[in-house]
């Protein structure tokens, strides 16, 4: 019974953090894609003529900010894997990842 409770305890933690990272990061990536395509959505006029609409420059800036965020998160993930075996672990001081010795 205690084992079961311990597993439940572990599960909800994994679920909460996993949801934040596993569903949150793809959502940020998707927002980036949406920002990137800002202005390109209506390149066919109602009468059928094709008008080339250039993407909005601000959309591009926002998009690359979002992508950078996702890439940084992935890099933190890789750093974690690489350093975990060397006896280091990542703790989160607020939102900033900090490396500490185990």
């Amino acid at each position, binding site marked *: 019974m205690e084992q079961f409770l311990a597993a439940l305890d572990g599960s909800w933690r994994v679920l909460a953090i996993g949801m934040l990272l596993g569903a949150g990061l*793809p959502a940020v990536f998707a927002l980036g894609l949406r920002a990137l395509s800002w202005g390109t959505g209506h390149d066919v006029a109602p009468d059928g003529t094709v008008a080339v609409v250039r993407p909005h420059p601000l959309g591009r800036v926002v998009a690359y900010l979002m992508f950078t965020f996702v890439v940084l998160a992935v890099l933190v993930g890789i750093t974690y894997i690489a350093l975990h075996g060397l006896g280091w672990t990542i703790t989160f001081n607020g939102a900033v990842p900090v490396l500490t010795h185990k």
Partner: protein
Amino acid sequence: MNDVTPEFILLALVVVTALAFDFTNGFHDTANAMATSIATKALTPKAAVTLSAILNLVGAFLSVEVAITVTNAVIRIQNTDGSPRAELMADGGHGLLLILMAGLAGAIIWNILTWLWGLPSSSSHALFGGLIGATVASMGWGGVKWVGEGYKLDGVVGKVVLPALMSPAIAILVAMVGTRLVFWITRKVAARYQESGFRWGQIGTASLLSLSHGTNDAQKTMGVITLALIASGWWTDTAEIPLWVKIACAVAIGSGTYIGGWRIIRTMGKGLVEISSPQGMAAESASAAVILTSSQLGFALSTTHVCTGSIIGSGLGRKGATVRWGVAGRMGLAWLTTLPLAGLVAAALWWLGHAIGGSTGAFVVFGIMCAAAIYMRWHSKRDPISHHNVNDEWSDSKDDTEVDVPVSGGVR
């Protein structure tokens, strides 16, 4: 000590068998990281297995964390510091080596059988199942740590059974929410941008998964080999793994990954859900997040269960997408049976090896394992799946007649 004694031959057989298990672990799990990238054509099949193999190789070298106590979670053949129990050390560690030999052979046979059926089953469950079976055969039921004590997750129930029940559910939820969000956010984005953008995301997450697989799974085999070396007196340090063991394990898991378990890749990438790039990325992100989070929190779970759960979740999260529950059900059956059946095979092999005795017994066990592997490899030729046809349309009828029958018929 340095003569070629029967104990040395037994040790060599155990090491070779452990490396063979690591190899099967590699090809069995290629699908976890790469199935969705291959199915959505984010990567060509060859590029996918090459990338995954390199990252597994690199990952294996990163796993320098001491893994010698790997068996302690489920069986009682080691002391808490990692050294083998004294009673198993007699005769140059013969007792312990035979347990490892039979356990690994049972795990390999089950891994190849599930590969033949194209079912992703957990390699860790197969390894633990094999070791548990061989231990029960050798030391009785008391040799296995069934339930951990108190609130620390341990034993077969805490380290294997409960995480196996929870982890697919967690992964399904995360991937379902992720998929739904991603489709909702990009609903007005041109399909062209959607596909190409998410393919890049997929490659990133698949790489992350491959790397973490290398670090997690290779070190289990490293631990087993080092334990065998300690038992037979060839190595004494319980805090360090010999360099050649690291290199051999890294190469074994990397080359296994490169060979690619195409049958399993096909089932996971095409059989469960017709997957698109956004779904693929959501599924892989969910897997990577759940696996890394749980290893940070010390909650042991199986990569295979998480990745399969994520793919199912990505099917549930997309409106109009269907999950082939027949395929999912067969996988579920394979998950439930992996541990007990790998255990039964290992127990039978241990009894046989013990009855014959000496290094002859170990040779017979090794021979049976090789014969079984060759037979199943030969059997797979009837219905070959390779990087040429891994992405062909999935047909349920063909699949049902060929896969259902052996599953319901039990182990051969």
